[in-house]
């Protein structure tokens, strides 16, 4: 069996406009890959397409989890297959508490007729909240409603930790975070790094990668990866800026 997240020659459009233009990527379990690139280059589209968002049209290509194509599956099926997407802008769901939300997500993973063990569940939930320095009172609050940017992102990491996915895609998790929140969120992610899990960290800024140190850095431009390297590449990008990417690869992709 192939233990990786694999994107093969993915072409995606929305309203007739091509966004991903032959995107290829392989993230093996045990590794953290960063995907960087200028705004509007297709990073968030990639994340949403992998998660099964219905607004996008897949023209061709595959997204394989452990060798199985997930494109065309419903978002909940993709989630069950092991892919977790930490949202750039987590939705606010009025009237649905964090505890009930995560519980419903855990319950959905159990076989028909089996009930979640509430005591174990809360024990686990509280332990993970403590680790993320989240007030336990948050469990009763409506999901993300009125949360600060940092609280929302912590809540995303909490969900990720609770659902124990094999493949974590993190879309601009650093956006809107101050340095303290960034540290806490990164600790949460680093704690989850393991041989059985792969991370794709999408970010615009190098800053996050000081805390979540990647094995591989990819540079995305105009719908595909144009350059890959080790963690030093992120630093190089930080110095040279994205204009360098545009200049270096605009001609290549034209």
């Amino acid at each position, binding site marked *: 069996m192939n233990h990786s997240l694999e994107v093969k020659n993915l072409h995606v459009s929305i309203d007739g406009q091509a966004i991903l233009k032959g995107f290829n990527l392989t993230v093996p379990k045990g590794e953290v890959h960063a995907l960087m690139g200028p705004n509007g280059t297709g990073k968030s589209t990639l994340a949403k397409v992998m*998660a*099964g*968002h*219905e607004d996008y049209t897949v023209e061709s290509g595959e997204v394989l989890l452990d060798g199985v194509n997930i494109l065309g599956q*419903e*978002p*909940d099926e*993709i*989630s*069950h297959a092991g892919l*977790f*997407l930490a*949202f750039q802008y*987590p*939705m*606010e*769901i*009025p*009237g*649905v508490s964090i505890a*009930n*939300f*995560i519980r*419903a*997500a855990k319950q*959905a*993973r159990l076989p028909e007729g089996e009930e979640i063990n509430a005591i174990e569940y809360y024990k686990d939930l509280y332990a993970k909240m403590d680790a993320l320095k989240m007030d336990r009172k948050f469990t009763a609050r*409506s999901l993300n409603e009125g949360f600060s940017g940092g609280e929302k992102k912590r809540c995303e990491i909490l*969900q990720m930790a609770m*659902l124990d996915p094999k493949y974590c895609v993190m879309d601009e998790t650093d956006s809107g975070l101050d340095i303290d929140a960034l540290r806490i969120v990164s600790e949460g992610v680093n704690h989850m790094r393991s041989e059985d899990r792969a991370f794709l960290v999408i970010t615009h800024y190098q800053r996050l990668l000081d805390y979540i140190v990647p094995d591989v850095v990819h540079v995305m431009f105009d719908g595909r990866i144009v350059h890959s390297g080790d963690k030093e590449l992120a630093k190089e990008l930080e110095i040279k800026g994205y204009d360098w990417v545009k200049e270096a690869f605009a001609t290549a992709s034209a």
Partner: protein
Amino acid sequence: MNTTLETPTNTLSAKEPSWLAERRTAGLDQFKKLAMPTARAEEWRFASVGKLSIDNFNPVAAPSSATLDALTERSNLVSDRAGLMVYVDDAPANFECIGPELAKQGVIYLPISEAVEQHPELMEKYFLQESTELGSQKFFGLHAATVKAGAVLYVPKGVEIEKPFVNYYWTSGSRAAVFPHTLIIAEDNSKASVVDIFFSETEENEALNISVSNIHAGANAHVFRKVVQDWNEKTVSFQLDTTVADRDAQVKNVAVNIGAERARFENQTRIEGAGADVKMYSLTVAEGTQEFDQRTFQTHNAPNAVSDLLYKNALLDNSRTIFSGLIKVAEGSQQTDAYQTNRNLLLDPSADANALPGLEILANDVRCSHGATTGNVDKEELFYMMQRGIPQRVAMQLMVFGFFEEVIEKIDSEELVENLRQLIHQKFSGKIS
């Protein structure tokens, strides 16, 4: 119109006092004089009045004692209570009276018939004195002429009662017409809580309900009324409710509406004392071809008072809701805070929500807002939830319940809240896919 409804044979008792006989006669005259509503009338705009037939419903004989016992057994939404009354087709089925402590303090909790006999002055002052002005005057007239079932709660000055009084109004017989009445009089500085529950024995027994409830909240009185309407879908229902709030009174109304084929709500709040604070929350779940027609009127006749109305409706299938609300701030009622919000969640494209919010302000220093929103389930919220592995059906249920929670959480009894969630859950199971 059948003859039975036109001849009020159901007098409360042989000893019915003259003032009550007069009110009954006046009610009957009003019922006869006024025409059935037409769609042309502004008060009935958008309502399917053509289908609003009250023909061939009649007051029915008391059900068998087995039925009374069975329904008393099922009257179990609230176990921790100060008193209980159960009526079936307007016949008394069970009465748990107040304990000696409350009786000693002068609290009265009695069936209407007994209250008329034992406390005629009180009843003459308050009973059938507040009528709707929102379109159902004809039906109020019929109620006044016919009413025999219901509960009177009187809380004297300074007496505070934490536990609720629970009134059940069941229908059971074939094409039964019922006229339940809840009268709440909370004197100055008192505190009371009432739960009114409207249920049908089966899914099949057709019924007509014309109920009235009047709240009189004295100075600094605290009144909390919760209403659960879960008639079967063969019931035509009118709930004609009023609240009168005196100085600094705090009144909270929370209604959960699930049942009936056609349900008309007229809810009037009149603020008569400075500093009063009245809240009106309503949650409606409509399915099939149900129609819920809600008319509200908040009147501020005194300054520095608050009235806050939030009506939320979730609509499935081909159901309909109508919300029409009016806020009227009288001249001199300065520093008024009056709010009115109607939110409709459309879960099927064929469902139909209508909203008519309105304001009439004659004072110049007020804060008033009114608004109505109608929308579908948010696709991005659904995607977010499904990304966590929650199936679409469950995600929809969670979102709809989240929509309800804003109203449900206003209810202070955890037991009642849980029971209401169950009732709504039953209605939803298998509905959202």
